[in-house]
């Protein structure tokens, strides 16, 4: 449909009015010749273009201008003048000083290291579990699968902040059921200790992402033409073999997409650690993740220029990481 439409349009735009494919004799029957028709089309298309003006205006103001400001702010530095808090502030050009500071900022990069390590464990874990879940659903009876699917999707429907708070309460030694549960087996687990807090947050991340990732992978599995399975079965392939050699390669594209999305999200981790910080401020420091450090620099310390430079660095890291992962996963394709 869309292809036809584009062809219609392309044909209608041509300066020599042939017989219109839509079957409406406009070009031929018009006595005014070709130039007026062209103008008339242009006017029509200009009106169509104007439909996108509200979006373009808002997009310019709320996306392009902030990005440009980010680049501008990050090369300036602001100092308050005239001691005792009087007087204004001087803004001076600092070149790449903010970036130079950012690139050697120990706490920023240790935060970056933390989220990288965390992403390296949590993202593959989520993908593998979701894939297993999608394959299991695919193997279950269809009607049962539909019921399980809604239940498994419930965590996706819960607002992220609520999910984090609910898990904080699960971990809480006071109100949560998990501490007594582990105590029953003789284990004394403190979910908020510095060694456990990553496991606690990782579990929360897996819980939140499992259903959604499973849904995308399950959807991809449904579109595999099942003649292939028939053929594989005739050749004597086991169900496990079919799952590994046919189904998994078929959903590779969806795996790339969901991995990329979760890597991008994880590198910018902010909400969850901030909420955990409300409970364990001694474990979760205020520069625990890069995004938390940016927030802290901008709105607690008040160094907007430096915070902007750090945001640009974070954006670069996110971009480079996504490109590498995209390349890495796509290269393995047979």
């Amino acid at each position: 449909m869309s292809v036809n439409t584009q062809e219609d349009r392309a044909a209608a735009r041509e300066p020599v009015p042939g017989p219109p494919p839509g079957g409406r004799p406009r070009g031929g029957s018009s006595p005014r010749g070709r130039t007026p028709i062209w103008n008339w089309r242009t006017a029509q298309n200009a009106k169509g273009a104007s439909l996108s003006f509200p979006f373009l205006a808002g997009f310019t103001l709320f996306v392009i201008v902030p990005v440009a400001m980010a680049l501008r702010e990050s090369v300036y530095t602001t100092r308050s003048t005239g001691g005792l808090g009087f007087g204004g502030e001087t803004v001076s050009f600092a070149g790449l000083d903010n970036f130079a500071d950012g690139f050697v900022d120990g706490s920023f990069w240790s935060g970056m290291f933390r989220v990288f390590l965390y992403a390296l464990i949590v993202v593959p874990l989520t993908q593998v579990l979701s894939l297993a879940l999608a394959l299991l659903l695919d193997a279950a009876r269809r009607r049962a699968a539909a019921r399980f699917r809604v239940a498994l999707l419930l965590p996706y429907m819960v607002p992220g902040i609520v999910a984090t708070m609910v898990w904080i309460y699960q971990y809480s030694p006071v109100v949560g059921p998990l501490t007594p549960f582990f105590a029953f087996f003789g284990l004394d687990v403190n979910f908020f200790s510095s060694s456990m807090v990553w496991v606690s947050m990782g579990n929360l991340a897996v819980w939140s992402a499992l259903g959604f990732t499973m849904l995308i992978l399950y959807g991809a599995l449904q579109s595999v033409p099942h003649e292939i399975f028939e053929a594989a079965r005739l050749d004597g392939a086991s169900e496990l073999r079919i799952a590994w050699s046919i189904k998994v390669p078929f959903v590779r594209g969806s795996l790339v997409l969901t991995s990329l999305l979760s890597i991008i999200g994880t590198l910018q981790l902010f909400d969850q650690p901030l909420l955990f910080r409300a409970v364990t401020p001694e474990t979760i420091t205020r520069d625990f993740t890069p995004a938390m450090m940016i927030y802290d620099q901008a709105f607690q310390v008040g160094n907007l220029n430096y915070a902007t430079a750090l945001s640009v660095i974070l954006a670069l890291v996110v971009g480079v990481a996504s490109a590498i992962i995209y390349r890495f996963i796509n290269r393995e394709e047979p």
Partner: protein
Amino acid sequence: MSDTTLAPDAAADGTTRLPVRRRRRRTEEYSSVAEARGSSRWVVLGVLVALTLYAVGPLWWLVVAATKSRRELYTTNGLWFSEFNLWENLATLFTYQDGIFGRWLWNTVVYAGLGSLGLTLVALAAGYGIAKYRYRGRGLTMGLIIGSFLIPGSLMIVPSFILFVQLGLYDTMWAMILPGMFGSFSVYLAKVYAEGAMPSELMEAARIDGAGEYRIFFSMGLRLMSTAGATIFLLHFVASWNTFMWPLVFLKGVEKWPVMLGMYSWLQRGIDSTVDLTSLVVTGSLVSTIPMVVLMIAMQRYWRSGVTIGSLK
């Protein structure tokens, strides 16, 4: 030969959204797929049940905990009911600090509602314009849209703060509503949908009947694109209901907060002061989650199609 065998399948794939068709296709597949038998079937079922319990367990705890009084929350088994105290909890929740929670809930509805309505109109118009007209700059617009997918959200927050202070939007409701109205992903979604749902022949017919381009969009385009509109509205409504960092940065006044930020402030205070707000946070979490779950289950068709288009991009 291969065409004739593939064609019916492709048709079935295209119509999986229709419930009747889907059920029939599933049954066919179910009979043709040699599904897990005997013991392995029980293993499949067992693992599924275990993971479902994992997914639902914490939510079950939330529902149970919301029905308990402040004292029982700490003393009784978290996974089963004791005295039913939900109504008292709700009354406390909505009367605490002159009903600030109701105010937060209302703010959330206003921000999410107005923002989503604006976004839906803006995105449908832009997507329709890009899909159905050929003009100079169209390629550039698409380039901007696709390019903006690569901008991470954390890059925007600090410069947006500086900009909003200059524009006088800081600490106003417009800081919550306006920026969300120009989401490029929604325009992309609308464009993809308009290409399929808006026949050019129909537009030509309307032109011959004397309708102007705007009239065609407002009286036909909007109606034919209502599915895409519902998807865009729903996805943004849910996203802005759940948003946290944006109001944390842009809203100073307590009475302007949305519900998620409000509950965060309770979580913080409930732990570092003498007032115990845990019970309020638990009940508030349940109250603010139920609308989302109901909405998402009721409108599965829409957000799933949005997710599918998203995963094709």
